[in-house]
């Protein structure tokens, strides 16, 4: 079975230790987490993990089943890139004088659709939101001029299909 990118979405209670429990499921199978984001979800008091892995569908299915089995996990799903809308964010810290000395930098800012978040005497910060390859491209374009600091967030996704979490929780209320 071919390895490919999968995004695993986990809806869970917001409890201490659950991240450890979920990451342990990957550890036990010697599978690397490529990207991880944890945030609130569309439902009050429900957290959402977005985990990106590069592995086979068979392993992804196993992992999702094991995650979903955890007591504090409400529901887990996995999707291919085609089935989701996904983005990452990145920040680039660059020396301020380059903005004036290197005209090409202004072109990169315009063409990449990135924003200048702040400018100070010594440095300015560019923010870019987009697909991984867009951020990578911007990185390669800026790299020759010198990047003082770089950071990229975990992937965040929403699915094209409906996620019936609210209905599931609603059902429990009436049991």
């Amino acid at each position, binding site marked *: 079975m071919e390895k490919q990118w999968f995004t695993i979405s986990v809806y869970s209670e917001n409890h201490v*230790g659950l991240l450890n429990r979920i990451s342990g499921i990957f550890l036990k199978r010697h599978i690397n987490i490529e990207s991880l984001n944890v945030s609130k979800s569309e439902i009050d008091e429900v957290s959402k993990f977005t985990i990106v892995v590069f592995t086979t569908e068979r392993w992804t299915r*196993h992992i999702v*089943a094991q995650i979903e089995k955890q*007591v504090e996990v*409400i529901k887990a799903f996995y999707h291919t890139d085609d089935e989701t809308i996904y983005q990452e964010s990145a920040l680039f810290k660059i020396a301020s004088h380059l903005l004036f000395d290197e005209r090409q930098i202004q072109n990169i800012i315009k063409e990449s659709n990135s924003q200048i978040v702040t400018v100070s005497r010594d440095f300015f910060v560019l923010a870019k939101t987009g697909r991984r390859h867009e951020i990578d491209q911007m990185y390669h374009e800026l790299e020759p001029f010198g990047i003082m600091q770089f950071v990229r967030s975990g992937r965040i996704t929403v699915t094209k299909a409906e996620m019936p979490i609210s209905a599931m*929780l609603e059902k429990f*209320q009436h049991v």
Partner: protein
Amino acid sequence: MQKASATPETMNVTGAEAIIHCLLAEGVDILYGYPGGAIMPVYDELFKFKDQLHHVLTRHEQGAVHAAQGFARVSGRVGVAMATSGPGATNLVTGLADAQIDSTPVVCITGQVPRHLLGSDAFQETDIIGISTPVTKWNYQITRAEEIPEIMAKAFYIARSGRPGPVLVDITKNAQFDSLDFQYKPCKGVRSYTPIPEPDADAIARAAEMINQAKKPYIVYGQGVILGEAEEELKAFVEKSGIPAAWTILGLSAMDSDHPLNVGMVGMHGNYGPNVLTNECDLLIAIGMRFDDRVTGNLETYAKQARIIHFEIDPAEVNKNVKVDLAVLGNAKETLSLLLPQVEARSHEAWLGEFRKKYEEEYASVIRKDVTPDKPGLTMGEVVAQINKATDHRAVIVSDVGQHQMIACRYAKFRESKSNITSGGLGTMGFALPAALGAKMAAPQREVVAIIGDGGFQMNIQELGTIFQTRTPVKIVVLNNDFLGMVRQWQELFFDKRYASTVMTNPDFVKIAEGYYLKARRVEDRASLAEAVEEMIASEDAYFLEVRVEKEDNVFPMIPSGASVSDIRLK
């Protein structure tokens, strides 16, 4: 007990006392443990409540958790173990892992350093939540007394519901000392947790159709039948459908050993027919089992010709190891009873005959020599056969791990369910002696016989002290071959007889048992075996029997690691 009430329904108590009330509310009357600094407030309350709650002081925390497991496996109730922080807690880990892989309902309570010292590397502080996470179904650290009733209720609910498993509750010392307004409400559900999937009527109808069409159907049942208390439903299904049924090591005792349709054990040292015919059936019906690698051998050649139906409570087990044609999710008791009316009454005489024929082959080349040997040295098989005879198939047999375990599970006979207690998934040497103690306490009216090797016996030998102190009449049989026999067997077969670190220079086990004031005897020849086993069974007190067995016997049949079930070796 009179207590100042905060409201009419609540009473103001310390966290430590609240823990006792939670245990009593959950119907706990016995627990196993070992005191220490961070759990002392709870022990102080145990002292006050000793008339209602019997605490068994084991000699090691590992003994406590295995005893709780033995108790749980025989009674079907939640076993409880308690330990202090740090080493007390880490000593529970093997038992937690064992209970996790064998789906045993256990609640472990550990003391923890006070809240304000967490993370300071205080004396006997260890991150037991972090350590125990991969080997528990759920765990939780209580840092405030008010959390105790709700978390304890949740712990018991999670441990026993759905596919059971171990839960660890870590309680900081301040939460034990502080007071709370106590009120206990049993847990009835957790919104993020579905213990038992809803049975799907369509899946059951399709299962019935596949079963009714099959020419050579074959059932393999596991512990899910016992945990789901589906023994009667399994029997009714087997008898109506006429389908031969085999057990996994943890499914053993779910059906009467002598039932004509109960054809033997699958797996690495299982019976010949049940393994070979896995690859000749046209429909494999797996009930409450998880296709462990010791059952399937090489997956590439496992039941490829057959359609497979999997009756299973845990959706994560479906298609985990073996791709199945149909999954019937739910509790086996429920799904099998829904299935039964849709199954046609049949008999499969010719197909059953193939199992009988294979049994005869196995009898001629293995079983006869194991059970009625004609060589001078004693065999493990004949000892087990003597125990069967002396107990009329009514004993609880608790085995450890290794050759003796395989022999016990091959030859021990059962009439009652929940009678074969062994460490299946984890293969924990040292399990049997404490587990037998817990088993006997769960079923004092039943005969409990621990069958242990000389290696595993020495891994928790200290629990002889607990057996002596509690006067628990456990019968302990050590099958001594002065070797770590199973590893030695592999060294003989696969490592050119290089017996690396498997030779045991053993002490005088009888003297050790006598040192603990137990009745003890050693048997070295066939002439005295039957009489010694009878004396042991007749004893009203605990009894230790060492049987010196042949040193280099092997367990057969055997599926070599990575081989197909079809390639099981008879020698």
